[in-house]
């Protein structure tokens, strides 16, 4: 970091979108400084926990099977967002994914066939070899080779914006504050999901029991500064992508391995040992994000996924061992639930099951009758010891609140005019495309598309 010079492009953030912007701007010949607020080991924001990119393709392509045309992609997005999306920006993102893999490979990213247990994504999603951290490592190597300067433990705490134009940032770094000047800035610093106070403000006291699946460094500082400076917002602060994860996961950064994938194979009860939703409504990949919200709505934001010996070994083994017992009563005691209540819930459930042919690969005909809430598929008696339980809590993946952008990745002011030299990319603007809901691999698609556009446009602005 050099306080005596004026950088061409200043990038706030160090994840996928930030690095795509940095590489693109540096290749256009601009001087680039990346400010990553995390230490080097934890660089990359939530990109570190990602694993794939949702790709449009009209024919089988290396790791992708069959085809996934633009319109199907768009319809999938429309469905999950319920229309809370900007079609122009969404289609730009989708089209970008048709070609960006070649660019990614050129900059060191490697792809692998779909991982075990993810065959349902083989057609739509290209997996990074080694996951998101390997992708970031490749991008950092590329960026550094292009002369991009990277500062770790460096957080922008103030932006000097006058008449809608950015001139400099105050950066906190190793206990001192430095003023860094630049001709253009790219805000790619993520959302606010690590900011517990902000989460509480948005969601109320229930937020205290949420776990944060990703980076502890997404405090939303840059987002807050931009909003306070008059940026137009997109997305709802009270909306977030929320998954039911193992309650024993750490408060932050547990990532994917805190998952529990056996909800559809058993029942889920709350603190009062009562069931509260249909565990077998649809395939788990379509339901895990719904279960985050469901658990969040329960007392104390806690629930327990309970299975018996028949289901053990039929789902990806979670990181934490199950709580195990030889009877439902013993299990209740181990979970500190009311034993009679749990026994009653289980026996009611068992009695309500109609006979059917169990098949976990289909929406089978094993369902309950006359039970509320029902279990529509994969309902089998919990009758074979030992019994197992995994405690569940809501795990926040990301927040939707962001700044509005146009198709040049320029940030939009509240009066709908674009900011001349402020660009935004990645999670901080993902709400433009994904205002609600989730489809796997869309975050990296948005980050890659808008990161590259922001880098290109920032470079062009400096040249002009």
């Amino acid at each position: 970091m050099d306080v005596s010079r004026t950088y061409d492009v200043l990038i706030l953030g160090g994840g996928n979108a930030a690095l795509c912007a940095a590489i693109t701007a540096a290749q256009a010949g601009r001087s680039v400084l990346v400010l990553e607020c995390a230490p080097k080991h934890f660089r990359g924001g939530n990109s570190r926990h990602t694993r794939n990119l949702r790709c449009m393709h009209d024919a089988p392509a290396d790791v992708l099977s069959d085809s996934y045309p633009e319109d199907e992609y768009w319809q999938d997005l429309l469905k999950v967002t319920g229309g809370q999306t900007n079609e122009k920006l969404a289609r730009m993102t989708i089209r970008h994914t048709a070609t960006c893999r070649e660019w990614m490979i050129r900059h060191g990213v490697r792809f692998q066939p779909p991982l075990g247990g993810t065959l349902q994504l083989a057609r739509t999603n290209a997996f990074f070899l080694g996951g998101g951290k390997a992708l970031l490592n490749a991008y950092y190597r590329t960026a550094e080779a292009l002369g991009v300067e990277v500062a770790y433990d460096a957080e922008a705490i103030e932006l000097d914006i006058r008449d809608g134009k950015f001139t400099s940032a105050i950066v906190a770094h190793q206990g001192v504050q430095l003023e860094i000047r630049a001709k253009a800035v790219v805000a790619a610093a993520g959302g606010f999901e690590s900011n517990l106070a902000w989460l509480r403000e948005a969601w109320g006291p229930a937020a205290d029991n949420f776990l944060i699946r990703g980076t502890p460094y997404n405090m939303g500082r840059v987002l807050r500064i931009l909003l306070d400076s008059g940026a137009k917002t997109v997305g709802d602060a009270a909306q977030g992508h929320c998954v039911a994860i193992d309650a024993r996961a750490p408060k932050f950064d547990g990532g994917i391995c805190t998952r529990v994938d056996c909800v559809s194979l058993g029942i889920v009860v709350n603190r009062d040992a009562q069931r509260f939703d249909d565990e077998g409504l649809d395939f788990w990949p379509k339901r895990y994000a719904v279960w985050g919200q469901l658990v969040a709505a329960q007392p104390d934001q806690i629930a327990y996924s309970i299975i018996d010996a028949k289901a053990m070994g039929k789902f990806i083994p979670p990181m934490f061992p199950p709580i195990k017992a030889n009877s439902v009563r013993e299990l209740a005691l181990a979970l500190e639930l009311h034993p009679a209540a749990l026994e009653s819930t289980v026996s009611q459930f068992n009695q309500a099951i109609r006979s059917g042919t169990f098949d976990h690969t289909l929406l089978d005909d094993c369902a309950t009758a006359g039970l509320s809430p029902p279990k529509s598929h994969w309902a089998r008696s919990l009758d074979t010891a030992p019994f197992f339980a995994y405690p569940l809590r809501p795990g926040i993946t990301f927040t939707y609140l962001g700044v509005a952008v146009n198709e040049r990745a320029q940030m939009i002011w509240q009066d709908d005019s674009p900011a001349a030299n402020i660009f935004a990319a990645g999670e901080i603007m993902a709400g433009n495309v994904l205002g609600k809901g989730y489809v796997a691999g869309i975050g990296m698609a948005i980050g890659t598309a808008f990161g590259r556009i922001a880098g290109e446009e920032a470079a062009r602005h400096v040249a002009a």
Partner: protein
Amino acid sequence: MSPPRSLPVALVEEGARMASICNACRYCEGFCAVFPALERRLSFAEGDLAYLANLCHDCGSCYYACQYAPPHEFQLNFPRMLADIRLQTYRKYAWPSPLSALFQRNGIVVGLVAAASLALLLWAMFFFIDRSVLLAAHADNAGAFYAVLSHRTMAWTFGIVFLFVVVALAVSLVRFWRDSGEKFGDFFSPEPLTHSVADALRLRYLAGGGEGCTYPAETPSHARRWFHHLTFYGFMLCFAATCVATIYHYGFGWKAPYAFSSLPVLLGTAGGIGLLIGPAGLLWLKAIRNRTLSGAKQTGMDVGFLALLLWSSVSGLLLLALRESSAMGVLLGIHLGIVMALFVTLPYGKFVHALYRLAALVRFHLERRRTAPEIGAE
């Protein structure tokens, strides 16, 4: 054969903890054989970890890609844990069992054996052989080597050592395989064995995502793969030279030293050059490697073996160059002393990785033919 002892409980528990995280994450599945093998399991007992540890090529790709690597609170240093377990399995399977202690402080052990072997040989030569013969220059056509040390002595000494080494290695391999729970005959199933040998000969799992593995540091490189190829094929060429020379001696009655243009000398020279560059390169890579990935007691063992390989080629090539000079007698003693130390320590040093790695690959290919556990979509 006494039954193999167990690995340290704490190490097995730590291994199971880490493997459970990997099994829930699975991002590294495409790097090598370890992760697909791991994903076939729901829990990780000692035997599973011993297998995975020996399947691991210690390339480091998974460490650099790991979102849970230290300083993350999960402290997931998977390759280092596997290296620690691997070393323990070397002790566990060693035969005869009391000699497994030699894997403790292995670098020092190998050094002491080398020194002892050299001292013994040189002492014996100076003691038993007339100094005027030992320190004289000999013409090649006079059967120079055997003028100093009789062929009989050389053949008997090395023959006995070689036989012992073969038996010790074979028993170790049997112990490893028995621990895997696979059937003895299955080791020789043609298809898995062929695939495994091909994987080993190409060092397939040191290729990373195509641009090499993350060794010695994060930037992918083919350096280790190529230095290992030079070492392995150099070793094989030297071995081939010895075999051809044996055939010459017993089959045709042709006595060494052979002409510079003869097959044994050409093979030995080519192999010697490989064994010069390969081990030197591997030692250099080891010196600059990111230490956080290396097993606690691994370095001494690795360095000991590489140093012996390097010194055997240096002394062999010097002997070749100076074989008609008066230094020949002493050089021959030094070379034979080093080669003897190399052979004696084969079953109790880094060399055993070749056996267990190959056997682990065979098991991997055997398992791949079986159906994987039925796991629902995540």
